[in-house]
């Protein structure tokens, strides 16, 4: 009986809670010169403060427009909610200090962009990773 209750609880939690960092992967173009980033580096990339890979190649971060993967990425890796991330980039746009990452409506488009764009980096649900991509470990 206890095992059944425990199993039900685990199932319930897995259904109710949004996807966590474990199911989100950071992906990059194969020419990106790193295989791991610190959490701070990843944050600086998606806030436009780190624009160049080691060696000087431009970083092209891409985002999802909405959805659970986007929310989980922001919460787990950026310590932000959707509104805070949106406001950060709106400030950059209307103060003139930066251009927001290109945002796509689907993970398929994120993968296609990253695969085709040298310096590209994005995030997707781990179940959607396919094709020639470099998986970036976040320390």
């Amino acid at each position, binding site marked *: 009986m206890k095992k059944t209750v425990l199993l039900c609880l685990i199932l319930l939690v897995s259904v109710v809670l949004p996807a966590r960092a474990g199911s989100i992967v950071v992906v990059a173009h194969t020419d990106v010169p790193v295989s791991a980033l610190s959490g701070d580096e990843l944050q*600086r990339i998606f806030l436009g*403060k780190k624009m160049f890979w080691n060696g000087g190649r431009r970083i092209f971060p891409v985002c999802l427009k909405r959805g659970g993967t986007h929310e989980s990425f922001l919460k787990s890796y950026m*310590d932000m909610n959707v*509104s805070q991330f949106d406001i950060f980039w709106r*400030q950059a746009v*209307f103060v*003139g*200090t930066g*251009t927001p990452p290109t945002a796509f409506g689907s993970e398929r488009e994120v993968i296609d962009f990253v695969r085709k764009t040298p310096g590209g980096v994005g995030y997707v649900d781990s179940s959607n990773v396919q094709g020639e991509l470099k998986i970036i470990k976040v320390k």
Partner: protein
Amino acid sequence: MTRKRPGLKHGFLTFPLLFLLVPGICQSFEIGTLNVHGFASQGYLRTTDNDYLAKTKKGSTEFNDVAVNVSKEMSDRLRVGCQFLARDLGDAGNDKANLDWGYGDYRFRDELGVRVGKVKRPMGLYNEGRDVDMLRTSIFLPQSVYREDMRDIMNAAKGGAVYGTIPAESLGSFDYQYVYGSKDLDLDSVALRRQFLNRFPGVDVEEIETNIRYTSTAHLFWNAPVKGLKLGVSYETARIEASSPAVPDTPTNDPDVVVPGQPARHLRIDLDSVWVTSVQYRRGDLMLTAEYIDTVQKFTMDSGPEGRVSRKGHSLGYYGGIDYRFNPWLEVGGYYSVYYPNKHDRNGSELVAYGMPDYMGWQKDACISFRFDPVPGWICKLEGHYIDGAAQVFDYQNPQEVEERWGLFAAKVTYSF
């Protein structure tokens, strides 16, 4: 040099309607690699007593902004862009479109970038984005630090900036920026009317030339290793100048009576030091903010034969605020803001000696704000203030008695793309 232009006092929905009525321009778009963004807002202000920034005792809709910007990445390291902004807030702005910012931005590396042109001036957490309503919960920023009467002086400067982000491993990272420049000033603004007009009696406002001779601003943020914690400090010096020509003696119909003129006058306001310290802590949907400002300034009036008069001033202000996002469409925030125009006379006793009420010596503002984000691109805000003191109530807008305790209600709708 500036010239006052004829005011467009209709205010209500002047520019916002252009955006909202023209189909097809109400969304962000790209022309090739040219990015185009904009916003338009319309507000309403009403006070229980004291006209504040506009004729608010009877309610005022002279409270709107509209902006359009374009930017383009010319290369991996070079970006250019500009923004035009038109705003109206009582006597200020009058919907005249101005270049808000416009510059070339070259990023040598993550640690070093350069901007040349008209650049926004960083000061505290919000000065650069003070005109952009969608960036915060409240309609009015805390007036102790972000004084509306100083907006035209603090907003931007023509010159250049260096900036960058320096990672510091286990210490987090540092964002820095230094801006140097100058700027012509427009006397069609609340701030400058208050500062200058009563110092040039008998002079037509159009004859007064004003400018910021120089401004120098250094700004540093520390993104601390504690998640969500940001600490900042800004330091600024500036010189603001205003000059009027001599007004000759004027004979009247009676040849024995002559109305005396005024000598040429030159007013200089030196912001000797403006220090702003900031702390912001964000955890999930909660954000806590506090800032402190300390300003030392010197007024020097050169009145020709009358000689030179000089006076120093030392003001301070601070606030603490809290914002919480309950869900994607509702955010509630509040702050308590305190401002003393004379740091050494916080109870206004020196003002009483000059025949003024003591409550002109402080302004304490308790504010609560509700921000609604009903659909993407649209924001509605409602805000209430209970204010004790009238240090930022302008005497030229309130020739009658100024009340000590008063309320302010504000509402604003903003559309952005």
